[in-house]
């Protein structure tokens, strides 16, 4: 008599790479959460010499404004993870709600929702972001909203498909014949059955959001330069002299992005396997 969660966790642990990735990711998240305690300096504090290479006092050196790069990196992880997590949360919520509505109600509601979904999906998001950035006040939370409103169509389609196949199951029909209300069927029967695929999909949305934030910030359309983020740190390394001569200004941030995204994808793959009911 093992709980469903227990079975999934045991299967997940069979994937060594995923387990390692989960630990690495956990450490990174802890570092980000406790950045104010770990970081020796504030993110924007002038801490020492200008553009000094790494040494004992400044583990990752200092930038052109004499700010400690290690402290900046910690705060940047905090900002980037927050942006990506919040954006993923928003897009997952929108996707699940619209997908469930489309799949459950069908007919015109389904048509309307799915046309809207296709429209958002086919819209070039960079353009959307440029327009949004021009209209709204740029800031961390507008980037969260923009990313959140761009990434949901995939989840909506996934959930709609799951709901359509659940509709055909006998237990769905036996809920109808038991006279169960719509909200019970939707949230107590259907939702738990779509959580597994959604969770897997959400990990890839999370990874993409980290990359999107970095890309947008690099283009100057993302998180304001006054706030450290992984993209903003990379933006500071635009000139060829920094790229070739001062690798400590951009290599750590780039590495963190690569490691985070890789780890998230490993975790997502293992989750997919662990939650597959066919195993």
């Amino acid at each position: 008599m093992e709980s469903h969660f227990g079975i999934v966790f045991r299967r997940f642990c069979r994937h060594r790479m995923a387990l390692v990735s989960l630990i690495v990711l956990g450490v990174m998240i802890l570092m980000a959460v406790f950045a104010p305690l770990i970081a020796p300096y504030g993110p924007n504090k002038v801490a020492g010499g200008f553009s000094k290479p790494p040494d004992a006092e400044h583990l990752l050196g200092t930038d052109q404004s004499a700010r400690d790069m290690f402290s900046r990196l910690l705060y940047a992880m905090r900002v980037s993870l927050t942006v990506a997590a919040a954006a993923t949360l928003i897009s997952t919520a929108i996707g699940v709600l619209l997908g469930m509505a489309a799949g459950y109600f069908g007919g015109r509601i389904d048509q309307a929702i799915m046309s809207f979904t296709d429209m958002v999906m086919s819209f070039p998001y960079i353009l959307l972001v440029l327009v949004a950035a021009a209209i709204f006040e740029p800031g961390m939370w507008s980037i969260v909203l923009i990313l959140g409103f761009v990434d949901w169509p995939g989840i909506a389609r996934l959930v709609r498909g799951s709901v359509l196949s659940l509709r055909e199951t006998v237990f769905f029909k036996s809920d109808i014949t038991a006279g169960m209300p719509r909200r019970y069927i939707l949230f107590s029967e259907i939702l738990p059955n779509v959580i597994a695929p959604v969770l897997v999909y959400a990990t890839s949305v999370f990874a993409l959001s980290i990359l999107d934030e970095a890309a947008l910030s690099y283009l100057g359309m993302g998180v304001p330069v006054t706030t450290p983020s992984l993209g903003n740190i990379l933006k500071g390394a635009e000139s060829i002299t920094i790229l070739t001569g001062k690798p400590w200004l951009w290599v750590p941030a780039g590495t963190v992005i690569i490691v985070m995204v890789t780890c998230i994808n490993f975790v997502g793959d293992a989750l997919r396997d662990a939650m597959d009911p066919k195993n």
Partner: protein
Amino acid sequence: MTSASPVLEVRHLSKTFWEKDGLLRRAGNRAVQDVGFTIAAGETFGIVGESGCGKSTVARLVMGLEKPDAGEVLFHGQRIDGLPERRLRPLRPRFQMVFQDSGSSLNGRKRVRDILAGPMIWHGVVPRGGAQARIDELLDMVGLPRGAQARYPHEFSGGQRQRICIARALSLNPELIILDEPVSALDVSVQAQILNLLRDLQARLGVSYLFIGHGLGAVRYISHRIAVMYRGRIVETAASEELFAHPAHPYTRALLDAVPSTDWNRRGRARIVLRGEAYGSGWDDGCAFRGRCPCADAACARAACELSPIDGDGHLSRCARAGDGPERS
């Protein structure tokens, strides 16, 4: 409730399923045509027929899972066909359903306890948090150990899962349970256990059953009255023993003859052996069974017979040649 006011009355029920077949042409499948019957309190009404004869569609129409094209479904005299779900929902606890596939009719992510408690709590059969005693009682009733409630559906055998489904149907104190081939997927020994359980429960609770099946033995064992369906129509209906003792319609006879038997009394007459598949589109006016019927003649192609009484006791048959054809000893 007396037998004068039936629990369920079905009148002239018809349903055609339309399939898109090319751009303009549409193919129709007349799944149910002009089906009618009544079920009294504490009675079991059996519907038997081959696959695709429309018997499960009748169950779905009665349950409101499909909308009939014509006809009426009356529950205690109140029409329930065509009611919007919102109005039907308060009535639903009074007529429950057990499906054939017990495996997929239970949500695999929930424990048996939660599967049973959900509908009871929602319909106010038990107070929130007070479902435990009732769950124990239900498991006792269907012959499962009380420890079963902490487990998941996939940990049970098909017969045990069907017991869980029956417990779920009983949980709302229904007056009528529609059993759509509840034992067809089970081993013969398990079938007998489930059928006995259903009979015991009926004796204790006075619940009515609409029992749908294709196994003659099971339907005969549990039903008081039986209807035989062929191509969407009831071709014969009678009290259970009467139907088996004096089958009137050639199709009913063919069904009975298909059952291996040691009954020496039957040796006197020629057996009717069904040949071929179901015949024709079902759209002409002739008898749907004529293509496979040993006693069909030209008249059968022109017009189908009405369901008419054989005797005074409610034995009806849809064959004017009933009694003709191959002689019985």
